[in-house]
C-alpha cells in the first residue's frame, strides 16, 4: 500500500523490476518420491522373480495362433460394435418416436435382451438349429421362396456375432437415447421451424450433437467388448482368451500365457483410447470455444516451454501458462 501512495499514478509501473519466485510444492515432491520407490519395487519383483517366465511370454507374444486369436477378438469386437450401435440407434429412435407400437417394441427389446445373461443368449443362438431346422424366406403364413439350413447359416461365429450384437444393441440403445435426450429441446424446435426433413433433423442436427455424450460411454462399451468377447470361449471359438487357454492347457505354462493375453488386451485398449481422443475432439467442434491440444501439440508446447524456461527472466513470465492455450 505504502508503495502505491508514495508514488503518483502517472509514474512508471511500480511493479517493474520485481523478481517472481515460483511457488514451492514440498508435498508434491514427497509424494513423487514415495510413488517412485513403490514403482521401483514392483519393477524389481517383475524382473527378478523367475516365475514370470518372461522368455516364454516373449516367445508366445507374436506366435501365429495367438495373433490369429487377437485378430478374431478384433473382428468380433468391431462387428459387434457396429451391429450393436446400428441397431441401438434404430431402437433409440423408435423409443423416442410418436408411435406407441414402436415405443413398446423398442422397450420390450431392451427389456428382454438386458435381462437374459449373455452367456445364456450365446448358447441359445448356437442351439437355434435344434428349435428351427431350417429358416425360410417367404410370405408370412404363406409359401416360402427359399430355405436355409439353420446349422449352415448360424455357425459358431454367427452365433457369437448374433449373441454379442443383439445383446450389445440393447445397451447401445440406451446410450444413444441418453445422447439424444441431452440435446437441447431448442435444437429440435429450430430444425422443425426451418422445415428440415425429419431424417435430416436426426442425422445432421441431433445425432452429431448427441455424439458428444455418446462417444465416451460408447468407447467404454467397446473396450468392455474387447474383453467381453472372451466369453465366447463357451462356443470354443478361437479368440484371444480361448487360444491362450488352449495353449496353457497343453503346455501348463499358465501364468506366462495369461500375461501374454493381458499384454494384448492392454494394447487393444490403448489403441481404442487414442482413437477416442481424436473422435471426441472431432465432435467437440463448436461445443468449446477452443479445441484442446492434441498430445503431439502438447508435447511440442512442453518442449518450447522447457526451452524458454532455460532463458532468463523476461521469457519466464509467459511459460507459466500452457503455451498451447494461446
Amino acid at each position, binding site marked *: 500500500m505504502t508503495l502505491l501512495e508514495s508514488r503518483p499514478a502517472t509514474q512508471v509501473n511500480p511493479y517493474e523490476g520485481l523478481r517472481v519466485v515460483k511457488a514451492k510444492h514440498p508435498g508434491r515432491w514427497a509424494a513423487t518420491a514415495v510413488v517412485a520407490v513403490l514403482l521401483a519395487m514392483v519393477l524389481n519383483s517383475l524382473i527378478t522373480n523367475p516365475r514370470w517366465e518372461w522368455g516364454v511370454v516373449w516367445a508366445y507374444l507374436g506366435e501365429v495362433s495367438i495373433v490369429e486369436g487377437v485378430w478374431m477378438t478384433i473382428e468380433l469386437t468391431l462387428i459387434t460394435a457396429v451391429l450393436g450401435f446400428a441397431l441401438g440407434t434404430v431402437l433409440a429412435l423408435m423409443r423416442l418416436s410418436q408411435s406407441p407400437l414402436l415405443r413398446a417394441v423398442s422397450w420390450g427389446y431392451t427389456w428382454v435382451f438386458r435381462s437374459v445373461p449373455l452367456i445364456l443368449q450365446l448358447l441359445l443362438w448356437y442351439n437355434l438349429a435344434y428349435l428351427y431346422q431350417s429358416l425360410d424366406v417367404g410370405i408370412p403364413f404363406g409359401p416360402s421362396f427359399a430355405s436355409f439350413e439353420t446349422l449352415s447359416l448360424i455357425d459358431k461365429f454367427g452365433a457369437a456375432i448374433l449373441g454379442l450384437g443383439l445383446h450389445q444393441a440393447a445397451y447401445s440403445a440406451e446410450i444413444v437415447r441418453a445422447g439424444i435426450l441431452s440435446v437441447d429441446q431448442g435444437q429440435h424446435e429450430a430444425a422443425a421451424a*426451418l422445415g428440415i*426433413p425429419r431424417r435430416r433433423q436426426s442425422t445432421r442436427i441431433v445425432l452429431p450433437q448427441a455424439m458428444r455424450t455418446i462417444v465416451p460411454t460408447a468407447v467404454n462399451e467397446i473396450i468392455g467388448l474387447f474383453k467381453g468377447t472372451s466369453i465366447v470361449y463357451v462356443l470354443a471359438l478361437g479368440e484371444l482368451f480361448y487360444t491362450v487357454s488352449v495353449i496353457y492347457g497343453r503346455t501348463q505354462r499358465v501364468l506366462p500365457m495369461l500375461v501374454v493375453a493381458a499384454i494384448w488386451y492392454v494394447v487393444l485398449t490403448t489403441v481404442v483410447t487414442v482413437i477416442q481422443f481424436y473422435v471426441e475432439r472431432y465432435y467437440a467442434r463448436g461445443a468449446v*470455444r477452443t479445441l484442446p491440444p492434441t498430445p503431439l501439440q502438447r508435447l511440442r508446447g512442453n518442449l518450447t516451454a522447457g526451452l524458454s524456461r532455460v532463458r532468463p527472466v523476461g521469457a519466464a513470465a509467459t511459460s507459466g501458462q500452457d503455451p498451447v492455450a494461446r
Partner: protein
Amino acid sequence: MTAVAPRPGRVEVHGVHKSFGAHEVLHGVDLVVEPGSVTVVLGPSGSGKSTLLRSINHLETVDRGFVALDGELVGYRRKGDVLHELKEKELLRQRTRFGFVFQSFNLFPHLTALENVVEAPVSAQGRNRREVEAEARELLARVGLADKADAHPRQLSGGQQQRVAIARALAMKPAVLLFDEPTSALDPELVGEVLAVIADLARTGTTMIVVTHEIGFARQAADRIVFMDDGRVVEQGTPTEVLDHPQHERTKAFLAKVL
C-alpha cells in the same frame, strides 16, 4: 395476365384456442396481419404471446380455430367441407414459408454461421448448395457479419448469434417472419444492433410479427400494435393509438409499468 397477383404474406388468425392440460392459455384470438406490414405484439409475461406465435407456424397445434397464410390453412388441407390434418412432411414444407427467430437463438452449435444459414434451403427446399452459399454470404453481410461466416456460434457474441439466426430465417425467403422476443436474452448494449437489423428488414416489405418488450422499437418500426392480456387480444391499432391513447384499462396499466 391482367390481374396483378396479390402480395404474399397475409396472416389470418381466427378464434384460436389453446390449452396446456386443463389450463387454457389462448381464449379465442383473432388477428389479421396485412401483407408487408409490421405487427408488434405487446403484453405482460404469461399472456400467451409466445404460444400465439408458435401456433401461427404450427409449432403448437391449436385446439380450436384456424390460422391461414394467404388463404391457405396452416396444418390442414381443405377438401370441400372436410379438413385433413397435414402429414409431417407437408407440414414441414408449409413451415418453410415462415421464418422463426427464437429468444434463445437456437443456432446449431456444431455448424459454422454459414452452415447454419445454408442448411435449410438445401435440405428443406432442395436448392443448389453453391447458389445458396453465395446467397448466405450476402445475407451474413447484410446483418453485418460478412467476416464471421466460418465462426461457430459459441465463438460469437449474443447479438452476433441472433443476427446469424435472422440471416438463417431469411435464407428460406419466407413470406412471414416471426420474432419471439429476439432481444430479451441480450445484454443491453447488444439490443440495438439486433433491433437495427429488424427495423431494416421492416422497410423491405416482408410481413413481420414481432413479440417484444422494446416499446421504443414498437413505436418506431410497427405499423400496428397488438396488446394481449390473459390469452386475448385486448386492444390493437397504430402505435399512436395504442401507446399514446390506450382505451383499455389493462393496456394503460401495462404501459404505465413499462414506459
